[in-house]
């Protein structure tokens, strides 16, 4: 591949100084406080008295260049030529005068960019590649998210939740989308079907064997050819063998289901960070709009909205009311699959008589 005439890359990671809105640069490290004049707008005040308004809007993350150019047009015309993106693929356009806020919002919304996602709203769903690009996806994260955000549109645009709500969606159990208040993740339910003809050529067998978290894979001769064998009793259908060995087909139109997890929290506010927990599984992977998944997500969200106290994140709320009541209030069944039996699983068992009746 390396041809002599090719350009040598300039290896350098660039600074952000020249991309900063001038108010950001001028008040770098010198901010005093902020408030939110309305949903979607942050107003930051610096120690010198300088002010900046940030208008946040949702995007589809995977944007066509026309969409990006439209954003740029708006930022140039109504903003001040700078755009930043949040970790949740929301765009933020900054202005240094309050009077510019309303026209900017209008322009964004007119162009189809919903303004919101700040404070105690439901922000955009962190999500992953899906069928559009990944080599191992069980579903199309972008599609699930589009359908979900359509339903949660008003929750994005308003700040009516007890605290901020972080959602994520991942197209395989690897969960590149991350921990979240509510996470939607593919959960395979059958062991991989092995295409034995291909194993010998495509897979480094010891590596695959080593990847399995439950040691369910062993090398085997199948039809006289070196292949692999899965102990289906042990297999937890995690799909970890699939990336290093594509013939171990884990994805299945019927048996790759969707699971819902709640109560993940990365921030250290109040309680320590914690992982999300399984509360529903076996949901059909039902494109193009995944109604069953959306119904469960909405049910959980609305129960939280109604029942949690201000500033309680999903995890804090459940911690207060207890899991039995979470299942009661959401109407979700508590099944044996939710009882942890993985390493360290005992730390998740109730080793006390602390019980809410």
């Amino acid at each position, binding site marked *: 591949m390396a041809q002599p005439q090719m350009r040598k890359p300039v290896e350098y990671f660039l600074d952000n100084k020249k991309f900063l809105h001038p108010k950001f640069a001028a008040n770098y490290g010198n901010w005093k406080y902020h408030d939110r004049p309305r949903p979607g707008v942050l107003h930051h005040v610096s120690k010198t008295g300088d002010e900046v308004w940030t208008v946040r809007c949702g995007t589809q993350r995977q944007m066509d260049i026309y969409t990006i150019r439209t954003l740029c047009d708006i930022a140039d015309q109504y903003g001040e030529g700078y755009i930043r993106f949040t970790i949740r693929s929301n765009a933020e356009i900054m202005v240094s005068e309050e009077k510019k806020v309303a026209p900017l919002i209008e322009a964004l919304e007119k162009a189809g960019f919903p303004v919101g996602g700040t404070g105690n709203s439901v922000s955009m769903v962190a999500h992953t590649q899906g069928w559009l690009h990944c080599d191992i996806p069980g579903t199309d994260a972008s599609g699930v998210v589009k359908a979900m955000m359509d339903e949660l549109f008003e929750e994005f645009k308003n700040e009516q939740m007890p605290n901020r709500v972080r959602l994520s969606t991942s197209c395989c159990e690897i969960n590149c989308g991350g921990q979240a208040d509510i996470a939607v993740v593919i959960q395979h339910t059958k062991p991989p079907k092995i295409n034995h003809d291909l194993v010998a050529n495509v897979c480094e067998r010891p590596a695959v064997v080593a990847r399995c978290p439950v040691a369910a894979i062993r090398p085997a001769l199948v039809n006289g050819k070196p292949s692999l064998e899965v102990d289906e009793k042990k297999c937890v259908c995690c799909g970890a063998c699939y990336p290093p060995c594509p013939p171990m087909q884990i994805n299945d139109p019927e048996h790759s289901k969707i699971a819902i997890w709640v109560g993940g929290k990365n921030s250290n506010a109040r309680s320590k960070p914690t992982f999300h927990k399984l509360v529903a599984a076996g949901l059909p992977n039902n494109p193009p709009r995944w109604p069953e998944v959306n119904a469960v997500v909405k049910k959980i969200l609305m129960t939280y909205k109604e029942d949690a106290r201000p500033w309680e994140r999903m995890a804090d709320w459940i911690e207060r009311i207890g899991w039995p009541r979470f299942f009661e209030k959401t109407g979700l069944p*508590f099944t044996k699959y939710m009882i942890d039996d993985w390493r360290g699983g*005992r730390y998740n068992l109730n080793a006390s008589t602390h019980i809410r009746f």
Partner: protein
Amino acid sequence: MAKQPHPTPMLDELEKGPWPSFITGLKRLAKEKDYVVDLLGHLEHSYETRKGYWKGGTVGVFGYGGGVIPRFTEIKDEKGEPRFKDAAEFHTLRVMPPPGMHYDTATLRKFCDIWEKYGSGLIALHGQSGDIMFQGCTTENVQKAFDEINEMGFDLGGAGPAVRTAMSCVGAARCEQSCYDEAKAHHKIINNFLDDIHRPALPYKFKFKFSGCPNDCMNSIQRADMAVIGTWRDNIQTDDELGKKWFAKHGMNELVNDVVAMCPTRALQIKDAKDVRRDNPYISAVALNDTQCLEIDNKDCVRCMHCINVMTGALAPGKDKGATILVGGKSHLKIGALMGTVIVPFMKLETEEDFDKLVELAQNIVDFFAENALEHERAGEMIERIGLANFLEGIGLDVDPNMVNNPRMNPYVRTDGWDEEVAKINAKKQAAAA
């Protein structure tokens, strides 16, 4: 008069100080018994060399496979003869005490007489598993001593891979927190397992403990393979008269700092009497004075006992009493110490049938343990190995979110039975509702 005592300069140091001295006790016995003279010599030797010198063996009573802990000296002279020959054998009889460890003096005196006759005269009240330990007996006398003790109505406890002696708290006999008849449960369960106690044939030991409330004065959660801990389902009971008395004595600061602020789930609030949510069936409240109340949201209460402990009488466990069952407590061999975990959030313990159900549950668990545990594997370790869900299925119990701190945080589970499971749960719900 016994023989000349060995010099015991180190042990003598333990006669100093105000706390009752077991050495002084042994010396008293040594005045009459050569057995104890040599025992003191034996022990002094341990103190000097910082090592123990007893080894096990096989000693028992007729008809039983356990209950005696045999000890033979390892302090030998050049010829291999015991250096403290009068204490060459020093076996212990483990005898089960009555539930709650109650005695009349006549019984204790009789124990003393028997042990004066056949043993060293040293009795431990009690061992950590609750046994009366008759300590120091020759092989020859073990059967004789046992026969007389057994004639009194007492029986040997467990040792080895057996059901073990159980313990129950003073509970209903004297304690206002008691949520079930601990002694009755203790009595019924042990009588059900006498064969498993006396003839060790389990994979490993199995212990029961009974505490009348979540204060768990028997440390059952940590030390019992099956712990039966009293609790209640309805609202905390209140007594306004005692509430006011408490408040008059302790005041608002103590109430806030020692009670309200220490409730683990913020179920307590101080309210003006008029603001108490009387229409809410899960609210109870106790008067502090003529205008103020302590309000309890019983839906948030986790029955930790704290407020009840502090304001005993003013607050009390509810009326709908019973017990929580936890399984798997044990010390740290070989995977680290385990607490018991909830397998039955609540079970009524009032009628004879209720207690029969408890015995039945215990029997199911021990049977499952006998069949499924590996050698030298405790119930808790077995559950850790096979998973709680499988254990529950094995003994026929339904899963319940009260059994977990939280649902699993990892996707390493095969869920292809999901729909079936949910159908089963719904069918049960419907059946229960019908």
